């Protein structure tokens, strides 16, 4: 592991209690600082399980994980401080307003006072939510909820941001705004680990991708490199379909 590596995963496996097949099977990965790393795969491939383990939601069955030079098992408190998570589901309180939600989550990260207020206002303004900030989240459109969901994960300016399908179910406008701001965030030094079903989006957004299926990493590299390596493929989607086949997944 070099000093440029921010996440190092060695032989990571996870088998849930009562299951015989592992959800994640002996994965090893190295993610460099400042990268936008795409973890791509069909439904049930093990993407969300991997991200959940990396952000300390539940422990792995085996394997070693090192984040920013710290061991995940031993230094979870530090790791949680430097990590931001944007879950696939909208993790907000629907009866609270966007501002109240962000205020609460900001406090949970130890932010307070003017610093917190300024950050909330900046992000609300960036995502075009200032006017709706005092409305209950339950009244928001899917795209608006996604944007607030994202802000809640980046308020504390994390070193590493985990994004689990951040643009699922949103309109093109919201998607463009979200991707643009994520690129800005990355430029400012945040490493992004991102899962998605949108291959086109991943191809243009990610600097590095790994395709995962049945809990195993099938291939890893830059999108450009993967397309060139796969004979007859012109984009990431055809590479993906070739590697994971066209059979439907649950």
């Amino acid at each position, binding site marked *: 592991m070099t000093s440029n590596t921010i996440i190092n995963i060695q032989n990571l496996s996870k088998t849930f209690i009562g299951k015989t097949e592992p959800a994640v099977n002996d994965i090893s990965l190295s993610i460099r600082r400042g990268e936008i790393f795409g973890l791509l795969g069909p439904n049930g491939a093990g993407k969300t399980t991997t991200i959940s383990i990396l952000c*300390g939601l539940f422990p792995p069955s085996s394997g070693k994980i090192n984040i920013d030079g710290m061991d995940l098992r031993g230094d979870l408190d530090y790791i949680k401080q430097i990590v931001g998570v944007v*879950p696939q589901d909208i*993790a*907000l309180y*629907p009866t*609270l307003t966007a501002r109240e939600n962000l205020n609460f989550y900001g406090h*949970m990260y130890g932010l307070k006072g003017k610093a917190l207020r300024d950050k909330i206002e900046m992000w609300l303004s960036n995502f075009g939510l200032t006017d709706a900030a005092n409305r209950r989240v339950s009244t928001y459109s899917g795209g608006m909820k996604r944007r607030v969901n994202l802000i*809640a994960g980046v308020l504390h300016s994390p070193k590493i941001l985990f994004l689990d399908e951040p643009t699922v179910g949103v309109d093109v406008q919201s998607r463009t705004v979200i991707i643009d701001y994520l690129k800005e965030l990355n430029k400012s030094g945040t490493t992004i680990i991102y899962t998605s079903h949108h291959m086109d989006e991943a191809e243009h957004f990610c600097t590095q991708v790994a395709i995962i299926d049945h809990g195993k990493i099938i291939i890893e590299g830059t999108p450009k490199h993967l397309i060139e390596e796969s004979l007859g493929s012109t984009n990431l989607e055809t590479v993906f379909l070739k590697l994971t086949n066209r059979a439907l997944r649950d």
Partner: protein
Amino acid sequence: MLILLRDRVGLAILFIMPMVLIFVMTLIQDSAFKSLNEKGIPILFVDDDKDSLGIAIGQGLKNSELCSFHDSINGKPASADEVKKAVADGGFLVGIIVPKGATEAIRKNVSSLVQQTLGTDSVLSAGATKKMSDSVEISIFIDPITKKSFLTSVTSSLREFISVIKTKIMFKTFSDQLAEIIPDKKTTTSSVFEKTQIIKYKEVYASKDIGEIVPNAVQHNVPAWTIFAMFFIVLPLAGSMVKEKNEGSIFRLHTMPSSFLLLINGKIVVYVLVCLIQFILMLSVGLYFLPLLGLPTLVLGNSIAGIIIVTLATAFAATGYGVMVGTMATTEQQGAIMGALSILLFSAIGGVWVPTYVMPQTMRHLSAFSPLNWSLNSFYELFLRGGSVHSILPDSMKLVVFFFVTMSIASVVNRIKRKI
């Protein structure tokens, strides 16, 4: 806190419904208390004797705190034939008929007995034996819904009246007979008989230095239903925790740099506060609103510190239990059913619905395991017996231990669930 404030229905359940519950339960049980303690049970009395016994029984019933005395139906003097029908129709719970010549029969029997004892009239002795077989039959008609305990009280009172009259007659007859044997002796007056009643009873409720606190519906119901309402916060608390799981907020919270207990601390503070507000509201119902309906005012005893300790201990116990249920439940329905049923069960065995002293022995043993019972006992100790901080400490400590045990269980369950 904000989430709770936004949930108006939830707030209504938390604050208004328990107040309504106290109003309703106290009013209902007040009539039950009155039926035993005040002039509530209607008795129809027919005195065909028109002599000492009939008059004494009638007077005794009139003065009795057990019943409301009636000797007429629709303004007309009741007859013996009408009594059974009136009771059967439900107009009266008990009907009593003292037959004609009842006093005279007692008099004759006593007179024969005295004469036999003193041997003053040997000629009469043979006949007296026959006359002594005359018996006095007082008819009592009972509505089947009448409580057995009340019936026992009425028959005991009747026996007492008969016994007093019998003794009076015996005393007078002895006195008269002795006057005949010893001519110099003056006939004893009835006032002398009254003086022989040297054993008297005084009923005092065994409370400590708080004057005359009479057990009534308010003293029993206000603390009982307040505790019930405080424990009912389990429902919204567990519900909000399950909601967080389902809505995904808990996912985000678990990825944040704070422990489970720290995450839950906010909820504990809010719900303990809710319990305290509930307590103040319920108490104000007992102190200010129930008296407006003609009910007795709640008497708080003489230990404010004791009340604060028990209230806080109860609030923490209820909150801890809510956190435990919320951690264990995986769906809102599960949380609601688990929470509601367990609280109903705890309250039933804890003596909220029926006092523990009327429960069978086995249930009384079980009630010692209900946190509601520990709380209720403490409030009874303060409100009814005038207890001090010292006397409520054991049960309050149990409530505090219950809080820590439930929180520990919640923490372990949470850890197990997150290991998946």
